[in-house]
């Protein structure tokens, strides 16, 4: 079914070829591509920092970089990966591209704000890269006071300014999504006919608009405190460092859900398509993402179990953290139940998303271990924590991001890629990821603390395993650059719906026309109405 549809002259890619036609475009699809290019760039900058760290950790002694440089490397890795890759990754690229298409709208509600958000992202990125070139920052991505305000001799203010500015880009994206999903749905597209990806974008948008302002103001307070030498975070000035941690994690814990909720949305789209099955328990899936977003706002204190927070606060935050596991588990069970009796095809997007479900489950279960007050005392600030959140953010969010790239690539570019290479890359990423991060669970359990460039000799074997895994992972991440580039140049035309998928985005041509649909569709059924028994290729 991929041989029809000659390339259409009025698709969004052919609507102007100059650089300026891209930089001034208010078409949500073009802005998504601007974002995709920028976040890919930052992903490889952040990845380069991680590469240097893994190289340093091959030997127990600090022989490649100094302790100071190592501190700057993990700060750079964290800041860039969190704010310039993971948080905008799926929402700003696929969310931007797909939300209007999936709900049957011509664009987001505020196209100019959408473009402004990309420029804010770039401005924030320039601040951050500027701080990096000027010599880096050594506080860790968490900017804990009083180290960041009083003692660090690095470019904290410039880096915080970058994060401050990029936060406004998140806020504008979130605002745009909320209004668009509320007000711009096509006729017949009721709330419970929305694809689950749109539900996940809605939940993400709520977190964007409610959490990001708090981070912005906190970083503003931090910058003034550092600049003026008066303030409310440094105990030497009569302030309270725990206050900073409360405010910081009030944003940064929900931000974790900004990274994982979109991944869950992608999973629901891809698993239903490649299992040829309606999603199991649609409503519980929709309510689960909302529940995760809401409960996610109430668990931030689990980052401070050993920071001098009161034991009663610790107990409450521990219970709330266990609660957030319930909707997460509902999602995993429902994806599994969706696969049951499906006619499953193992194309590249499906491989990535099956990997996502497995790795997210491990990441989530180890999160419960960390949510237990007594166990956290042992595991806090060890490699166990590092492994846990990389299973969520890399095993979860990045796997889903790559799955999304492979699933919607034909829609975005109008071209097919080599499925053989793509499946190979998916397997390389899965193997490399586990080899990198599983040993870190053991290292953490044995007591190796995070954020040191040296370690006792008995940890070397596991560290070498981890670094070896990282090099496999790096190959897995580089491979798509080559075969996707090939696809852009020489790939066969995809046609409107190469996967036989059900979403509205597949009902229009590939690449979509400037206004998305020749006529606005009228929706008459729930999503994922795949015919129950099929041979695979519809």
């Amino acid at each position: 079914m991929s041989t029809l549809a000659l390339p259409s002259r009025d698709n969004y890619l052919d609507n102007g070829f100059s650089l300026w036609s891209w930089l001034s475009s208010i078409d949500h699809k073009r802005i998504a591509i601007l974002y995709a290019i920028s976040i890919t760039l930052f992903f490889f900058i952040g990845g380069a920092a991680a590469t240097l760290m893994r190289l340093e950790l091959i030997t127990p002694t600090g022989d490649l970089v100094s302790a100071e440089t190592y501190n700057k490397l993990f700060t750079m890795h964290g800041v860039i990966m969190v704010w310039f890759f993971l948080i905008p990754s799926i929402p700003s690229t696929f969310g931007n591209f797909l939300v209007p298409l999936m709900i049957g709208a011509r664009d987001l509600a505020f196209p100019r704000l959408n473009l402004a958000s990309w420029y804010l992202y770039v401005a924030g990125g320039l601040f951050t890269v500027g701080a990096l070139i000027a010599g880096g920052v050594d506080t860790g991505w968490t900017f804990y006071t009083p180290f960041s305000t009083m003692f660090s001799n690095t470019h904290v203010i410039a880096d915080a300014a970058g994060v401050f500015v990029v936060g406004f880009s998140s806020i504008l994206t979130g605002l745009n999504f909320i209004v668009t999903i509320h007000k711009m749905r096509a006729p017949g597209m009721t709330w419970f006919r929305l694809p689950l990806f749109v539900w996940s974008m809605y939940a993400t948008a709520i977190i964007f608009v409610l959490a990001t302002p708090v981070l912005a103001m906190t970083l503003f307070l931090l910058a003034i405190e550092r600049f003026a030498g008066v303030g409310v975070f440094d105990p030497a000035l009569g302030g309270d460092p725990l206050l900073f941690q409360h405010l910081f994690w009030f944003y940064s814990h929900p931000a974790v859900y900004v990274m994982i909720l979109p991944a869950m949305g992608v999973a629901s789209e891809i698993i239903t398509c490649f299992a040829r099955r309606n999603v199991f328990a649609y409503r519980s899936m929709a309510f689960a993402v909302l529940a995760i977003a809401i409960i996610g706002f109430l668990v931030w204190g689990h980052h401070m179990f050993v920071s001098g927070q009161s034991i009663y606060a610790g107990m409450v935050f521990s219970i709330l953290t266990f609660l957030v596991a319930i909707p997460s588990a509902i999602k995993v069970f429902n994806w599994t139940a969706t696969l049951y009796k499906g006619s499953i095809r193992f194309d590249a997007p499906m491989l990535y998303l099956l990997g996502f479900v497995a790795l997210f489950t491990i990441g989530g279960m180890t999160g419960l271990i960390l949510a237990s007050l007594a166990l956290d005392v042992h595991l806090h600030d060890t490699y166990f924590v590092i492994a846990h959140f990389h299973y969520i953010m890399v095993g979860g969010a990045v796997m889903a991001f790559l799955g999304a790239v492979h699933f919607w690539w034909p829609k975005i570019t109008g071209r097919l890629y080599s499925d053989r290479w793509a499946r190979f890359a998916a397997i390389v990423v899965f193997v490399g990821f586990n080899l990198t991060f599983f040993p870190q669970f053991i290292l953490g359990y044995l007591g190796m603390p995070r954020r040191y460039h040296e370690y006792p000799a008995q940890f070397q074997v596991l560290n070498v395993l981890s670094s070896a895994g990282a090099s496999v992972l790096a190959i897995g991440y580089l491979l798509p650059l080559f075969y996707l580039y090939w696809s852009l140049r020489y790939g066969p035309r995809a046609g409107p719906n190469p996967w036989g998928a059900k979403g509205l985005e597949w009902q229009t041509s590939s690449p979509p026309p400037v206004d998305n649909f020749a006529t606005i569709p009228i929706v008459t059924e729930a999503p994922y109405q795949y015919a129950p028994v099929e041979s695979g290729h519809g």
Partner: protein
Amino acid sequence: MASAVVVARQFDDTDQQRRASDLGMWVFLATEVLFFGALFVAYTATRVHDPAAFEIASRLTNVTLGSINTGVLLTSSLVMALAVRSAKLGLRRASIVFMGATIVLGIAFLAIKGTEYWLDYAGHLVPAINFSHPGPHAGGVENFFYLYFFMTGVHSLHMLVGIVTVSVLLIMAARGDFTPWYFTPVELGGLYWHLIDIVWVFLYPLLYLVGRSS
């Protein structure tokens, strides 16, 4: 007179366009509440640490000018509400006059606030520049004034944005851009103005009145 309303290409009709703009503004106001929310949390935590210092310090603020300013700002909200109402009824002249009054009152607020800052400076109350306080709790008093300048400073920045916004609306109204069928920008500008006002309603007791009850 541009009486025909322009519908942007992504919208179906004027009604959808207006409702989208309205919701967008309310979401934006929610983010503003959380901006200031972080500051109120910082204020609360710092005050719990040293309540005596906050009592002493709030008595050092200029409650006369602060109270006058509260009156000025509440009045400005009244005239802004009247401006929105006039625009809705198509009373162009009245809406222009009321928006002008809003701008004048906004500028008056900033002028009074500036005077107050100058008096604070003369009284050696500006942290990191010339702060000195005799007696105990000097550190806590300094932290109070740090928050005082920070919170009222951020609020004044919002006032400045509000004044510029209403000025643009006034020019648009004078050009005849608004009709009883299209006055969304005035309505949204009004919402923003009221939010700034509400923030002040919380700032005023917390900063000026806290220590004066006994």
